[in-house]
């Protein structure tokens, strides 16, 4: 049976879910979840199953709901603590793609669960891809006022915001600036957290330095990075304006 599950996983890693019919799309979710949950399956099998799940849940709300109905949230959360780095990364990405499913939002409203995600996001030096996926997820879920409030209460949130903004990676900064903007919009304690971390001052300095593309020529950025730079500068401006 495990071989069949692994075959399903292999087949769906690169296949566009839109090309599958409903029964194939929905029918593959349970075997994949079972493979992730299986204690005897290898890391490669788990990894490929998680990649396929990531692919499937990105398709539409029905697939997300089906994964949740198969107790996917708890199984994927467990996989996020795997010994293998790539399994952890794939599980985090799969979880991120479950947003905005209501059950996933409820899951992240729990303080302890959110703290785990903040920890994952802070660990960008060791596990960049995992941190990127966690930040992406936080950027999406901080639109929810309750999650934003929980985030501002978290003890490790302040250090996370500071370290990510200063990391110099544009992809991570982009996600973090979205989180900052969301927190600013909610106001109250969330806004206070942003001020306490000195993010507004950082954004002002950032905007001043790189506005209108100035000073970027010395950085020798690629074309995609230059575009990303513009986006981050615009976001930083918005943060300054919102303050």
């Amino acid at each position, binding site marked *: 049976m495990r071989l069949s599950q692994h*075959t*399903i996983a292999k*087949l769906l890693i*690169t296949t566009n879910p839109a*090309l599958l019919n409903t029964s*194939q799309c929905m029918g*593959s979710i*349970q*075997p994949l979840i079972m493979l992730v949950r299986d204690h005897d399956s290898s890391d490669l099998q788990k990894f490929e199953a998680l990649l396929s799940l990531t692919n499937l849940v990105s398709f539409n709300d029905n697939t997300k709901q089906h994964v949740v109905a198969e107790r996917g949230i708890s199984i994927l959360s467990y996989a996020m603590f795997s010994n293998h780095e790539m399994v952890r990364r794939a599980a985090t990405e799969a979880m991120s793609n479950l947003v905005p499913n209501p059950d996933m939002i409820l899951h992240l409203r729990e303080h302890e669960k959110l703290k785990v995600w903040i920890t994952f996001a802070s660990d960008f030096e060791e596990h960049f891809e995992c941190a990127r996926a966690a930040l992406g997820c936080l950027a999406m879920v901080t639109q929810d006022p309750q999650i934003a409030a929980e985030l501002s209460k978290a003890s490790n949130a302040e250090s996370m915001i500071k370290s990510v903004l200063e990391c110099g990676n544009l992809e991570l900064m982009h996600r973090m600036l979205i989180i900052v903007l969301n927190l600013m919009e909610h106001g109250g304690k969330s806004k206070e957290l942003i001020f306490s971390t000195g993010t507004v001052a950082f954004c002002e300095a950032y905007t001043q330095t790189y506005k209108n593309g100035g000073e970027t020529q010395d950085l020798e950025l690629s074309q995609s990075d230059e575009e990303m730079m513009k986006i981050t500068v615009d976001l930083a401006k918005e943060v300054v304006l919102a303050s």
Partner: protein
Amino acid sequence: MLSFDAKNKAAKMLLQELKVTAPKLLKESGVSSSSSPMGSALNNLQMAIKDDGNAKADSNANDQVHQSLKFIHASILDDLTNGAHELLKNNNRGGKILIHLAFPSEGGGASEVQVLALKSLSAACAYPAFSHSIENVLVKWGGNENGEKWKKKFESQVFDILSSESRSEDLMNAVMTLQMRLTLNCHVQQDDKNYFDESFTTSQHDGDLFSSDHQVAVVSTALQSPREECRSTGLNLLSSWLEPNPLIVINGSTARGGENDGRDRISHSKVKEPSDQEVNQLPARKLAGYRNRCAQRSKGRVDRSRKNALEFCRKGGIDGLISSAAGSREGYWRRECVLAVGRVMNYIRDETAPKGEDGTFIDEHTKNTIQAFFKEKEHELTIEEIKDESVGEQPDGDSELMTCMKRCLFATALFVANGEVGGWALKEMWKYSKSDWNYLAVSGDDRFMAAASECASAAAGIEGARAWISSCIDTPNADGVWRQLLSCDDKEVRSGAASAMAKLGLANKSVSSDEGELFALLEVAAGLLEEEPLEGALATKISSENSYHAPLERGIELLSYLSSKTSVKDEIIHGFAFSSKSTPAGSSVLKKLVELSDPISVLSPAMSYSLATIFTSLSVSIEALRREAFEGKEMTPEQYDDLQAMGKTPEERKLEASNKEIEDPDAVSSRIKKMVQHNVPRALVNLVHGGTEATREQVVTAMMRIACEPAARGAMIQQGCLSTCIKLVKGVSIMRYNQNTIIIE
């Protein structure tokens, strides 16, 4: 009147009077009260036959008998339970009429009427109550109550029919089928009696219904018949007589027949077998009793089967079977006979025999039977030689070949039956085995060569005989012998030799690295995949049963052995096709393999498994297989190689490195792409349907290996691999559309 007024006393009294008097009146007039169509047909028969059981000379009466019998036969075939009940009515009136028509006292009789009556009887005997009742009718028909005279009368009638050359084939088959049904029913009753111990006394006969002399005589006569159908029925009769569990034969024939008249619901035995769950729930005392009864019954079955098999051997049955096989030019028939001999030898064997002086666990009866056969054949040969020498001529080559062939066929049967017995017989009894085998192999006659290659194939599958067949290869002219066998025009010869080569290769756990030899074998395997139209009446039977695919099966077996070699894989993928002087190159081997997986072609489980293995081998590199083998081990393949290299000299290492097959990953990828182009994923999906657990595992492995190639994934999903895997995981019943039939598995 009663339906209008239920209290009408006069009507009630009239009804009561009718109930009492009507059966008496009908019984006196000898006419059934039945108003059913079957009852009317029986009435017609009763009126048309004379008191002595023969039909009246009147042509109208004859027509009436004929039509009525046809109707009765069709009714029984249509609905066995109802048909048998109709015959059983009025103290088995129908059975009695049919017996009179089947065995007319004047002899001769109208053959067609006799055939129809016998067919109706044998069809109705599939119903246990009728079969039991017909035994009682036969006792009375014999004119003696002690149950002996009727047996003789019945046996002589049956033997007359079989030994007369003027009788039709249908009549012979019908009478043997009736005997088969009665024998099976008798065995079921004996088993029930053994199960229920002395409290069960419904059977009137403690022993077998027919004497062993009669059974052997009937089987031997049938085997000597020039009619193929008759010989086949004789073999079936032998199987039913010797099979320990008669229910296996009964259920097998019901399943093969595919009738939808509720035969599968008929309970032949009075024993109600409890389910596993019920057995587990039995209290200790009852469980012990149940186990005891089961052991008693199976001991009875084994003893009966052994006794019958020994009788069969003593009366020259084995010799008859081997002679029939040796005399036939049909590979199918030879194989059937060899298998039958193998089964007989298995029935004779006492598995509880202690270890003998020669270190084997073979019982005395088996030893004596084998000894008697080989001694007799040696004796025959000596007599012929002396006789020939006395007249100053050279020994008759054909008769000598025939004797060698008989020994070879018997040895094949022993190999098939039991490896230990086969090995022992080869070592101790078949003195001139090597020369006999070589004599047959180089004879140039397809029949003898086929026997030699069959023997080689069977011997290669047994550990104790592998050394012998290897020594046959090692002789100076062996290369020529094998080449001769592998290049023979006859498919049977080629397939046997190819199968032997494959088995020997697999036993050595290595595939020959000689490219020339590999391609010669590939050529043979490709040739065996080409189906040839069968000829003759037997062909109709074989094709209808779809049971005989020996050459094809062996072709696939050989391919599964060869496909582990990279050069062969590449050849197959790049469109290797069989071509000979007589036949131009047809479709490629890969295409043929895909076609074979189609649900229309009926495959045996072994063939499905071999096909799946071939596809699995084609879709993987040797390196990947090595990696898979080392998965979960404490050592990597590279570390293992280093460790092995430490014990070798630099020259050995160099030689090993030059012999090592290195496969380019791109080559595997292009192979997979070609496979997808040839619809191999669809073939794999087809193999899952109706496949065994082992086949399914191989299929899924092949699918997984093909899915490693990203470009193949889309086509795989299109061809149904994803849906099949989902179904396999969920354990959903897979429906197989086979022509117009839907089989739910």
